[in-house]
């Protein structure tokens, strides 16, 4: 396999690297970049734990190849704090004690960030739809939905 040089923006910084075609973006972020907020859940696109923002849109980094990130802008939870919206969401999640183990949290936070940046006044149904691809084994979703609802209100 031939290595490819890629250059992309990761949480605001330019990253240059050489990657093999069969390396997933998730693997690359976690093992090469030391970015650990995207989690390895199912590794097959079902759970949303590996969610990152790619050019502002949530994607499942386990289904994206690292080579495909060339020229893109990738934001993970580590860098999303720079976004006011994410800060607001995080505050609400905190207040509501919305997570338990927190494994799903980075994915949920990014999905909610994408939703509110496109639809700042999103209602309950839209919130549920937006996080329907983020599985949570702990909370039963109620506090998560409530926290996003509150962030959408103000």
């Amino acid at each position, binding site marked *: 396999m031939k290595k490819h040089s890629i250059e992309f923006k990761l949480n605001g910084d330019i990253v240059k690297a050489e990657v093999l075609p069969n390396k997933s973006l998730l693997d690359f972020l976690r093992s090469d970049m030391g970015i650990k907020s995207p989690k390895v859940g199912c590794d097959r*696109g079902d759970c949303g734990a590996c969610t990152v923002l790619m050019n502002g849109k949530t994607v499942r980094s386990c289904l994206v190849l690292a080579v495909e990130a060339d020229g893109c802008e990738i934001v993970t939870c580590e860098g999303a704090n720079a976004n006011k919206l994410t800060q607001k969401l995080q505050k609400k999640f905190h207040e509501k004690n919305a997570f338990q183990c927190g494994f799903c949290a980075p994915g949920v936070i990014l999905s909610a960030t994408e939703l509110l940046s496109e639809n700042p006044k999103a209602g309950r149904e839209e919130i549920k739809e937006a996080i329907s691809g983020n599985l949570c084994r702990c909370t039963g979703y109620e506090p998560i939905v409530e926290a996003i609802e509150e962030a959408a209100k103000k």
Partner: protein
Amino acid sequence: MPITAQFEYEKVKSWSEALSLKSAKGSSAKILAGGTDLVVLLRENWVSPDLLIDLKGLEGISDISFKNGVLTLGANVTFSDLIKSQTVKKHFTALWEAAQTVASVGVRNRATVAGNICSAVPCADSAGPLLVYEAEINLLSEKESRKIPAEKWFTGPKKTAIEPNEILHSIEIKAPVSKTSAAYLKLSRYEGEDLAQASITALLDCDKNYKIAFGSLAPTPRRAYKTEEFLKGKKIDKETLSQAGKIFEKEIAPISDIRSSKEYRLHMAKVMLSRALEKTVSRYYKGVPHYGEGMIE
């Protein structure tokens, strides 16, 4: 887990480059669109291509255009793109509605319509709408270009009419000229992310011609021509629906799988056919609900 499959990757800069690679490599080269199916298959070692050809750098590949009543979807148009398109919403309701039922946002942002029909699983959400709107699929190879009507596209489970040296270039759909209404109905085990246990797409025009397509109820997504023929010119009422159900039942060939049993599918297929037709008729007179409303309807 690392991906163990070994392959090369080429992000092409032109169609001619893509086509010459494809014709040199044939079926050992795969087109990488959103990767939401392909990367899963690679991870599981269910496919082992030598080369992935990435078309995402080509100009216009993600464009949705609407000219002279023809909608053209580039090979990289995603389900999220469809949902955001007012044209799709206005003229191709069933397609727009089907797009919303595909997995979840994070998948829809990457998964493409072209990829959906190239994977050609019996439950492909875009298949039913493309069948009732009688879409055409534009294929390119190094030497020629050809069009395949959606109805001839699906040749078997995960099989299509595309040749190993061809690449799907775009999908074209003519907007219906007269007033029509349409609906896409999907049955799944829970709301949110699931594949269809069964799906029905229905379309009605001003002469009471009905078009019906189904998914997950036979080896491929298909049109229900006999049921359509029976319904032609008829008003939808209880009696008509029950007769239509009997004809429909013979047109489908569901199996039992992890998502439901054959018997359940047979039963629900009729229920859904009725619901889809009733919804289509009511939309013909009352119009389509807004986004958000549509989901809780």
